[in-house]
């Protein structure tokens, strides 16, 4: 199972995904730079990613904490999510995301 992650240069990387891991961990394990300063505790917003619009509907809605934490980052769009709050399931095999500026 894989996640496709586009870096700031526009290159897309195929990352091995593990069920139950957060997308932040998958990105980090895949060797891409992601700050994720709080280690996945929804407390820093330095794991901001953009989810490909075609995948948005397959993800659970962000909870209140995640939405509030997004206040602490920039260039937030309707596709913005915190990667540490997205947990990988087989249904997300092929998920496409892009890193945001504040996360690397």
């Amino acid at each position: 199972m894989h996640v496709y992650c586009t870096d700031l240069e526009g290159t897309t990387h195929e990352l091995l995904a593990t069920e139950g891991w957060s997308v932040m961990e998958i990105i980090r394990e895949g060797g891409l730079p992601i700050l994720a300063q709080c280690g996945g505790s929804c407390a820093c917003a330095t794991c901001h990613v953009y989810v490909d619009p075609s995948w948005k509907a397959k993800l659970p809605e962000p909870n209140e904490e995640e939405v509030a934490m997004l206040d602490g980052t920039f260039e937030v769009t309707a596709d913005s999510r915190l990667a540490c709050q997205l947990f990988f399931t087989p249904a997300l095999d092929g998920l496409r995301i892009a890193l945001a500026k504040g996360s690397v």
Partner: protein
Amino acid sequence: MADSSLRTDVVIIGAGPAGLFAVFELGLGDMKCHLVDILDRPGGQCAELYPEKPIYDIPAVPLCTGSELTARLLEQIHPFGPMFHLGQMVEHLEKTPEGLWCVTTNLGTVLEAPVVVVAAGGGSFVPKKPPLKGLETFEGTSVFYAVRSRETFRGKRLLIAGGGDSALDWALNLHPLAERITLVHRRDDFRAAPDSVAKMRALVAADGMDLVIGNLTALEGEGDRLTGASVTLASGNTPTVLPCDALLAFYGLTMKLGPVANFGLTLHEGLIPVETASFETALAGVFAIGDINTYPGKMKLILSAFHEAALMAKKAFAYVHPDRRYRFQYTTSSSDLQHKLGVTEGTAG
């Protein structure tokens, strides 16, 4: 500069859990400590990033929050009377002609000691800056991330960005002084004390303050003076220019390595390599403990920081008290240690 310098046994850079517990271990060895932190309170990440969140892996403490951990550490080190220099950034680390280490802060505090402990964690906490072109030109003259003096904003058209307590508190606090306040936030929902939100909304309803829901996209100005800021409104996509004389941006804090990179230590991926018998760095008398260090097997846990502090203190003793022999003792049974802790046998429990 050295005229006003303070001489101590150990200078600790960073008052997170590593720096705080170091005071305890050093204190048992009769070493007095001064701590410096850019934050205005001790606790590091525990105080700044997760004061209310639970921690479950502190040995023998099944559960405590970030702020509880900080409070308990402060209580534990209280007998040793550590001196805190808060709200200051350590900018330089140099060797004095006398062979001491000299630490200088951005506020001009100069501390000298035979031992320096770098407990800088993930780096110093600095304000998050919006990625706006030309931002730096306005910083300090019309773009600010904190209020040093309220008077700066008297009679000004002030833009306040952010949706948390800092943004709301300052909007309310500066409202009587400023000519006009415009609060800009990306959504019409605020994570701040409900009372402040209610007060802000009442002011907006009474036309005493403006509330704009949108994102800052550009700054306009003459020289280093801000004249306006473009905002894309959440409701539509035509940007609006909000005229203003000053911008206060409150997007929270982030950790940046900062001056630690210039201390003369060779860093490995932004971390300080140490040996694991004493957590000393390549510079004799300079130690690195907690999240800032790296060694084979390192885990960024508070637990590791505590262990590192104990071993560091043992070696630091040799620098601070070269004429004395280090004596290993238990707090349980040593009346000497208990005396230092201000307890007499049996009263601690």
